Each structure stands twice: as structure tokens, then as C-alpha cells.
């Protein structure tokens, strides 16, 4: 049986305060973040503004600042903070015994959009 969670390796692969990328063949590249406060998040590596690579931004708290035009994106739900509007899909992630797992269906399916956004769209 195929597990629901995809093991993408040990947490030590990502230095705290940075992110690394996970290309998906035939799909969207994912950025996996490790914050200074030792939380882990996964988002599509694509700023909602002009597709800047979020993986390359400065991480502070649970926010990443896009390297291109400094939009602040919440790592928790992918939403642009402050006056900017937009949302990048997130990929459910869990850490178990020092390894990072991503929700398989979201990895192939291009992530999950924040619920509030769905509601707004509906």
C-alpha cells in the first residue's frame, strides 16, 4: 500500500532559518522551510505576486519575505500579509523522529489552498 506521507529526508538537511527546494516532475516546485523557531512548513515555491522563488527569501518568525519585491508571506497558510493580497498553496507537512513527511496527495496535486481563500472564492 502506498503511504499517505512522503518521506523527504531528515530535518538536518535544512538549516534553521532557510528553505530548500523539491522539484516535482510534471508538477510545481515545492519550497520546504525550517524556521528559526524550529518549525517546518512546505509551500509552492512561487510568490503570489510575480512568481518569485520564496525558498530564497529571508525567513523571520513564521513569515518569509519574497526575495523579489519583499512581499511577506505567512508560512502557515501561504497568505500574503499586510496590504498585499494573494495566497500560495501549502503542502501539509509533519515531522516524525527527525524526518520530514509531506502529504503525498498535496505534493502531486499542487498543494492545498488556505480555507479562507476558498470561502472567499465561493
Amino acid at each position: 500500500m502506498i503511504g499517505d506521507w512522503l518521506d523527504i529526508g531528515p530535518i538536518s538537511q535544512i538549516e534553521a532559518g532557510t528553505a530548500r527546494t523539491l522539484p516535482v516532475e510534471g508538477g510545481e516546485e515545492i519550497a520546504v522551510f525550517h524556521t528559526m523557531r524550529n518549525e517546518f512548513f512546505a509551500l509552492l515555491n512561487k510568490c503570489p505576486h510575480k512568481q518569485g522563488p520564496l525558498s530564497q527569501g529571508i525567513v523571520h518568525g513564521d513569515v518569509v519575505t519574497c526575495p523579489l519585491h519583499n512581499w511577506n508571506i505567512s508560512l502557515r497558510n501561504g497568505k500574503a500579509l499586510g496590504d498585499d493580497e494573494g495566497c500560495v498553496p501549502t503542502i501539509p507537512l509533519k515531522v516524525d523522529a527527525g524526518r520530514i513527511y509531506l502529504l503525498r496527495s498535496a505534493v502531486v496535486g499542487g498543494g492545498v489552498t488556505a480555507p479562507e481563500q476558498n470561502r472567499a472564492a465561493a
Partner: protein
Amino acid sequence: MNAPMNFEKGDLPGQTRERLVVIGNGMAGCRAVEEILARDPERFDVTIFGAEPRVNYNRIMLSPVLAGEKTFDEIVINTQEWYEENSITLISGDKVDHIDREAMTVIAASGRVEPYDKLLIATGSDPFIIPVPGKDLEGVVTFRDLDDVDKMLDAAGKGGNAVVIGGGLLGLEAAHGLSLRGMKVTVIHLMPTLMERQLDEAAGWLLKTELERRGQTILTGANTKEILGEGGKVAGVLLEDGTEIPADIVVMAVGIRPATGLAKTAGLDVERGIMVDDHMVTSDPAILSVGECVQHRGMCYGLVAPLWEMCRALADFVTESPSGYEGSITSTKLKVSGIDVFSAGDFSGGEGCEDIVMRDAARGVYKRVIVKENKVLGAVLYGDTADGSWYFDLMKKGDDVSDIREALIFGQAFASGGALADPNAAVAALSDDAEICGCNGVSKGTVVKCIEGGAHSLDAVRGTCKASASCGSCTGLVESLLALTLGGEVESGPKTMCKCTSFTHDDVRKHIVEKQLREMPQIMQELHWTTPDGCASCRPALNYYLLCAWPGEYEDDQKSRFVNERMHANIQKDGTYSVVPRMWGGLTNPTELRAIADVVEKYDAPMVKVTGGQRLDIFGIKKEDLPAVWADLNAAGMVSGHAYGKSLRTVKTCVGSEWCRFGTQDSTGLGVKIERMTWGSWMPHKFKIAVSGCPRNCAEATIKDFGVVCVDSGYELHIAGNGGIKVRATDLLCKVETEEEALDVCAAFIQLYREEAHYLERTAPWVERVGLDYVKDKLAEEGAIETYAARFRYSQQFMQDDPWAKRAAGERKDLHAHIATVRPLEMEKA
């Protein structure tokens, strides 16, 4: 074995007591039995299996036993008599191997079969062993039970070196014990800060500093690669970065995993832990489970407080007065004598969270309370944990704290002080001779007099009577006095560095040097940062200030740098990078040009362009290809052009006297010399230089940060020019006669700028702020040029190693490589 034969409640069949079998003679298992006995002592015949060959003891006190502060006898919870008095059959030293749910029996390693009506699994957790080579060597121990402690004490008796892998609660307590027992202890921790699950960066740093002061070696961000052995015994630990640490004993304390093996093979529902409902019942109604082995509402716990609540709910349930367990909020304390650490709740911070931070550097105190929607969400305390339980209580009860918000951080005594809960009122109530500023011995009366005498801003007070000018911890008090004395008339002082501090850039730079502050968390603690770990604007600034103040000593913090400086290339709108190799003074040659041409072709770069800085820019390089591109450019002798950095950028030159019919000096040659001297240096902002061979100024030297205009009699040295957004022509600094002098003045000017400008302030606004005369005077002081130039050259010894070469050689591979690639087909197979 058959049903027990003691029909105490009469001989009627069906009146026999139910048989309760407990697997695990640990903290939760025994507590559950105690709770049941307290409610209904007659209900069960109790049999407890324990893998450990001893009675039930207080596991958390193993740390004091290791440290020599307690003996085993002192930590026993239930003695042999207790089991006897309560007619409990204790089968210790016999591990249960199997549960037969159909027959309702358990089978132990000894072959003993015990039937049950109700079964309680309380197997606790197993220490997690990192799967590195050498993990099975003799001398590699975990820290879970008394046998482990005995092994450690054995090793400690022989002295020598101990390595503890894991800088969490358990690891640090093991390290503390071993160190008290006379071993030389090194703690290896994977994460950048100690106890990162309980502490934030600031508290983790304080803890690390204190442990180091006590003689332990703490290696953070250190990844164990292998445990080295000799003749089957442990001899050392090899880290991923090649460091080797000698070891006579290695303690693995990297974490625990719920012990679920038995339950899993018995077919119970198990995820991370054994799944239980609110009454601690597993997926089999005859089987209950409590302790670290369970997973309740998605949570697994590793502390005792939740276990007590679980046992309460379990006992209520089996004695038919179900109450239910709803999960626990936990708090942590570190049991290392003399170090007070407390943490509770959530401190990761999220949307809408607000940090209230108080630091007292003199007492080594750091307190942080996290508030969201007027409720306490978490707390991290270091050095003074007296109010830990109060915050924990506020948190658990979910009390609205808006009324005491202002005084919350000062603790319960202060916050519940009625009128005193208003800090201004509290300050008003102080007597005139009450000391406000401990560092400078300034009383309230003195501060008030100084304010009445015209010091109407924080800065003015600091400048006049010195109150709050040193560590800044009394800034709040001085601000209160300003408000009380002046009402609404308080003037705002010069702009502080950012919202995290009440100090200006100048103050911070001065303190770094005077107080010898050498690390970022140290600055934040000593200067009372009001945030736990700074912000995106002070972190890069502090990183630069430290780099400038302590060349060769301070370790650059990559996380505090903007993407371009981290990647050593300029990010482009499509996420690719542009690469600009240095071309000294704008000169190039066939080898370099060929190498660039080859790179353009080999990596399919869509564009190559001559920049405004007299060199070539290769566009469209992917981050994965950068190290290979750099390796190719390095091979042709080229190094990073730092076109991305707050650093020396380019030195533009014109052809000069070598070729030009008007040239007065060798401007090209001097430009190359200057670039060789200055490349690689980090600056407050970008720094550009140009050398023109005559006043026609073809290299545009008079709009550069440092410009040289050659004339017949020597060199005119210009400073503080700027092209760009706001054009500013340079000011003439001085005129010199030789190239050597020009180089020295250049080095000295750069160093003065590096040491005194604010981060992100180019030379033009800096000179306008401090005045041209100030700069001239500074450099005209006796010996100033030599001193500043020497400091610059010293620092350059450490700066002039090509960052590209290091990356090309494999440093920080993680920044350039993908973590993995997902191929949907492979995923199906997985």
C-alpha cells in the same frame, strides 16, 4: 495459569474480582493502580509486569541520582511492602512479549502466561537511537532507566571524556551529572540552539553561555556522522564537518519514541502512539493504556504531568464514574542546579501573537511572555523563574490579561499590585532617592532634576545624567519619569535602530566595542532587545557590525543576510541568478574572456552584458548550476565580483598615462592596486571606487564613494559621491603625491566609514550627516591614516577569500542543491 483462587468477596462465582494486568511498572502504570486503589481497593486483582528488575521509582529523579544529589532509595515511589500490602503481584525483571487478545492473556519472556479481564499497557517510551555507524559499540548508552545511570556512573568513575548527543532536557541533565562526576563533557546538538523545543534563541543562548562557563563544551548545529570505536569500545565521535571528539562514553539523548511494539503486534490501533479515547481505552474495549506510550487527540507526551491526568481519567472510568481526559498543556523546567529555566505553551509565534520581552543583563534574566487576543499563550523564562507557575496558570485558565497587560512581564507581585499595575503610578510612588539606573548609580531625584533642567527626551537624559545610557534596562523607568514630569511634552529622540531596541545605530555600535559584545544573542540580551530574536532589519545590521568589530573572530550569520549575499549572485525576476566575476580595474584578457564565453555556452546563459561597472554580467544561471559556473570561472583565475553585496563593488578606471595622450598617472594600474587591496570587504552599504587619469575624469571618479583624479603633481582624493537615485558629486578630501599615500588614505577612509556609518547608509548620506569636516578632522589626527589603514588591512586578511571558490569546493551544498526530486511514477512504487 488459572483464575486466582482468593474469593474474598464470598464464594459466589461472578463475585470474583476482575483481573487487572498491568504491563509496565513505571510511573504511569503504578500511578494508575494507585488511583484505582484509592477509589475502589476491592475491585481488581492486580498483577504488574515490569521489565526492569526493581520496584517502581521516580524516573525523573534519575538526573539527581546521576548528579550525586540523591540515592536510588530516595527516589523509590512504591516499596516492596506497598505491593504486598495491596496484594499486588509484582513480576519484575520479566518482559511481556505477547498479548493474546482472543484468549485474553499476556505471555512474558519467562514463559509465564497471565489471564486478564482488563489489561493496562503502560510501556512508556524507548530512547531513540540515531542510526549512525558505531551506535552498537560498547560505551554507547541511553538515559532512560537505572541501568543506564549505573553505566554512566561506571564510566565516570574512570574519568575521561563524555560526549552527550542531544542538547534537549535529557541530554543536558546527563551532561550536568557527568560533568559534576568529573568527566570532561561535550554536548553535540543538531539544532542551532539548545532545548529548541522548549526555549527560544535568546534563552537557549543564555543557557549555552552558562554551561560553557561551567566547563562544558557545547557544539550546536553539529551533526553526528559516526561513533568511532577501538576494539569494540567507543573511542570518539566524528561529526559531519570532520571534527573528531574523543569519548570514553557516548550518551544518546536525542529523543524518545512511544513503546508501541506490543500493542501493534496485538493489532491495536497505533499511530505514533497507542490510540486511546478520553477514557484511555484503546481500540479493544478490554485494553486500556496510559503514559508516554499513548497518543491522545493526536498528542504524545514526554512529561509526567499529563500522565497524572490520564491516570485520574482512567481510574474514574474503570470504577464507573467516568470523567474523561481532555489533553494537557505542559510546562518544562530543567533540573540542573543553579540554572533556572522555565517554558510553557506555544512560543513559536504566529499571526496575531505579541511578544512581551524583559531582559536584565546584570542579573542574567530573560523573560518572554507570548500574548494573543489578550490571553497568555506561552512563556519562556531564564534566570528568574519565580513567576513561571503564575504564567502557566494564566495560560491554562485562559484568563483575559488586558487589565494587567502593562505590568504582566514584571511578574505576579507587581501585576496584582492594584494601582501599582500602572508602571507610571509605580514609578511615581518611588521615593526621590530610589535608584533608577544601577549601572550609573542615578537616583530618581537626579533624573527628575535633569528632565526639569531641559532634558526632554530619552536621548537627552542619557546624555546628561547618564540614566539608561549603559545597559538600557531602566529605559522604561526613565520613559515613565519623562512622562510623569513633562506630561505630553516628551520629545522623541533620534531614531532607534528598529522597533526591537531603544538604542540608536551609534549606541549599538559603541556598546559592541566597549562591552566586547561578540554574538548576536549577546547584544540582544545586554542591550535589552524587546523582541526575542530581532527582526529582518536589525539582524543584517548586527551581523555587519559584529563582522566589522571582530574581524577573524565573529562567525558570519548567513541567515541574517539577504538572498544575494547568501547566494553570492544577484537574483533575477525569473528566480535565476546573474554572475559577475571580478575584472580588476576593468581589465580583462583572452583567458578570462574565453572562460566567460565557455560558461555562457555550457550553461546556455540567455544573455551576457557589459555592466555599468566595467565588467561582464552573465545572466540566467540556475542556483543548482552556480557552483559549477564558479568553478569554471575560478579555473581561469577569476573571483567573485561581489556585484550582489553591501561590499566593495567595482573599481572603474580609465586608460591613463599608459595610452592616453592626456593621462598624467597610471590610473589603470592604481585602480587595479586599489581593487586588489579592497575586494572582499563587507561594508555598511555598497561601495564603489573609480580612478581617472586626468581631470577629464572619464572614469566618473567624482560620483563614486571614493574617487581618485590624477593630476600632474599627484592624486586628488575624493569622497562621498553617488550616482544612482540622488546624484551627489564628491567632496575633495585631500591631495597626495604618491600611489602609496593614495592607497593608505583610501584604506583609512573605508575603515572609518566601515566603523562609523549606519548599516545601509552609503558614504554620501553618511558624510552629509556627520559633516565633511568631521571626516577630515578624524583622518587628520596624528597617526590616524596609519591606524585606520592598518585596521582595514588586518580585517582584509580574513575577508579576501573568494566565496565562490569555497562554494565551488562544496561548502554549503545545501543552498544550491534540491532537497530531493519527486517523480510521480517512483512515488507510486514507494
